[in-house]
């Protein structure tokens, strides 16, 4: 399974692709909405791309709990372990 750094860089590529956010800005402590300006619809695109990339399932009900990039990385790590 991918480690934290691999998931972070994979997620950063996805966020860059979906919303044009520079990869270096995608850090563990950044909030998707408040810091990276990812709205709820872009978040769906990020989540679906992450599901494909990391082979995990992230149901809609869980997406709203993923406030920061760190939350998403932990979720993917746990879901994939």
């Amino acid at each position, binding site marked *: 399974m991918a480690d934290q750094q691999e998931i972070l860089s994979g997620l950063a590529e996805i966020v860059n692709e979906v919303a044009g956010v520079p990869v270096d800005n995608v850090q563990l402590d950044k909030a998707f909405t408040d810091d990276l300006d990812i*709205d*709820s*619809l872009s*978040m*769906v*695109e990020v*989540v*679906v791309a992450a599901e494909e990339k990391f082979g995990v399932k992230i149901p*809609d009900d869980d*997406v709203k709990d993923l406030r920061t990039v760190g939350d998403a990385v932990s979720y993917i790590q746990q879901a994939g372990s």
Partner: protein
Amino acid sequence: MTGPRLSPRPGASHARILGVGAYRPARVVTNDEICEYIDSSDEWIRERSGIITRHFAAEDETVVDMAAAASEKALASAGVRADEIDTVIVSTVTHLSQTPSASAELAFRLGTKTPAAFDIGAACAGFSYGLAVAQDLIRGGSAKHVLLVGVEKLSDLTDPTDRGIAFIFGDGAGAMVIGPSDIPAIGPVVWGSDGAQADAIMQDVSWLALRDDPTHKFPSLRMSGPQVFRWAVYEMSKAAKDAIDAAGMTADELDVFIPHQANMRITDAMIKQMGLSDRVVVARDIADTGNTSAASIPLAMGRLLEEGQIQSGDTALLIGFGAGLVYSAQVVVVP
């Protein structure tokens, strides 16, 4: 086999769209007007939906009034007289006086003879559903000329204070006349439903609940935006591709893409997901018509024709998807 023998009635080999008509109510509603009731902004609404303005019907303007206006134009565009229509189908979820149907009243209003008339309820997929039914009625011999109308007065079922939905919907009507054809001009339908997601888009208070507890507010539509977005973009892109396959075509051969005008973001994400070429003309009528549910596909096709962006003979992929959840897609030849 022995026993009684019934005579079958032969149908036409194929069916095609003969004409399109569109009607948008006079009143244009801006995002600023919507924002008088919700804490939002013109910029926020444009970013989230691509909607700049929408039309709202007058208070006393009914779905049948709007349907009649669109139908007159569709008949004229098809070169078919009202008395040649033998079936009238109306798709709507906002004909709030449930009985009798909108279709029978519409048929009478248009001066048709006594055609078969019925309403269908398939929400935002309704027009594509109706097209599939019309084609099969014509090919099965039950109808020759079908008038199909998608009409909605969604402003009646919209809570202006619901920040998640107040800016989405508009009112309007779109109609098509479908008739017999020597060549295939409406492709096989790809359709279905997913009742497990019934709560994704629904009326929040049932009519019975309102009867039993009159302190309820008047019912309105609620939607879980991210849930619908996920289904629409990822599942509907597959259905759209299946409809192209079913027509024996490839995506490269397609000229026009007319998805239900749900949200510009859904349209953009679908295009990306389907890998559609830049050459394909894409309907973006939502920008100043809003989401008009069953009416959106014919309204969008009507606009593309009026603006000369598409021509008769082009192949267009239609896909409708919405509350149910239900969906329906087919490739058609533009009339």
